[in-house]
């Protein structure tokens, strides 16, 4: 790093000319497998809301994705800090209906429910109704909107369940 392609001899006064990496801020070494840690949940002050989840649910994936993108860009434009923007696992439902003449349940359709979440923080109390108004006016058909505060339970629902660990913990206590 000290010597570039044009060699400056160590005794010359031009030795080390062109060094700049020592001026940059120190970057923490990135671990190979970063632990999926929960980011701190902001509670918020009297005039500002803390972490808020805007959850959009629908059977149609394209609509929900586009709406999530729209909400994210709207927040960027209105200088609202977007902490995270992720997708929740898809839920699949089998709809069975009873035939008119018969007692057997027949398969009607297989529906997939998709959910996207945009997490914002630091929303001021005077601006919140305006943002909600803007989101509502552009809500597409069939997309269910839910705006709520972020909790640890919401984060835990994204993680895989560990039945063995839970069993052992139950046995211990």
């Amino acid at each position, binding site marked *: 790093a000290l010597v570039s392609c044009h060699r400056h001899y160590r005794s010359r006064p031009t030795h080390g000319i062109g060094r700049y990496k020592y001026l940059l801020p120190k970057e923490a070494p990135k671990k190979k*497998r970063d632990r*999926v840690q929960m980011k701190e949940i902001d509670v*918020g002050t*009297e*005039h*500002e*809301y803390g972490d*808020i989840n805007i959850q959009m649910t*629908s059977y149609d*994936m394209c609509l929900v994705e586009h709406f999530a993108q729209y909400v994210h860009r709207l927040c960027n*434009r209105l200088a609202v800090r977007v902490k995270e923007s992720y*997708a*929740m*696992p*898809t*839920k*699949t*439902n*089998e*709809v*069975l*209906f*009873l035939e*008119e003449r018969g007692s057997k*349940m027949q398969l*009607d359709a*297989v529906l997939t429910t*998709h959910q996207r979440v945009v997490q914002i923080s630091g929303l001021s*109390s*005077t*601006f*919140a*109704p*305006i943002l*909600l*108004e*803007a989101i*509502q006016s552009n*809500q*597409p*058909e*069939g997309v*269910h*909107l*839910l*705006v*709520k*505060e972020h909790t640890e339970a919401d984060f835990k629902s*994204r*993680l*895989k*369940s*560990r*039945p*063995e*660990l839970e069993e*052992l*913990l139950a*046995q*211990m206590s």
Partner: protein
Amino acid sequence: CLFFFLSSWLPQMVPSRGSHWQSSLLTLRASLPMRAQPKKKKKVDPRREQAQKDRMKKKIKKLEKAAPEMIPIEDFVTPPKYLDNSRVRSLPPLSFEETERRVLLMKRWCLFKQKQDKAEKQAIQTLIAAQQEALKELRLESEELYQAAIRRDEGLFPFEREGPNYTPPLPGYDPPEGKCVDITKVYTQ
């Protein structure tokens, strides 16, 4: 009277038939003088329990060391049947008028969307301006009310709203009976 004779003849060691044999055996043991050391496993029991607990704690530590994983999202994984490259769509060539028509339509659509977007941004700006003016006037009126208005609304969240529908619900519609079965794949670590 023969039975009584037989029972009195029988030695005391044999358990009598009248009572439940288990309880008679126990009373027999208690009645017998125990001279030998009782072989009760007093020392090994707590040690065994302790060892069991240690093993469980070790297992728990090992499982807890592994970082919790996120559930993979099926939306972002393309199903393998769409990865096949052999199927290619062959479109017919378009005429000059058709391409021109499409390009002009696209331009008109872009202009329309731009106007719509601008109008939306303008609406948001007017909303903010009106709100600020109203708050300023309120402050001049009374400080208390202004402070109360600035505060955050606890009843606002959670906020839920269903999207608009294409058609209203049909009156007098009788849906067939049925049920919904959740067949989501459960991932465990």
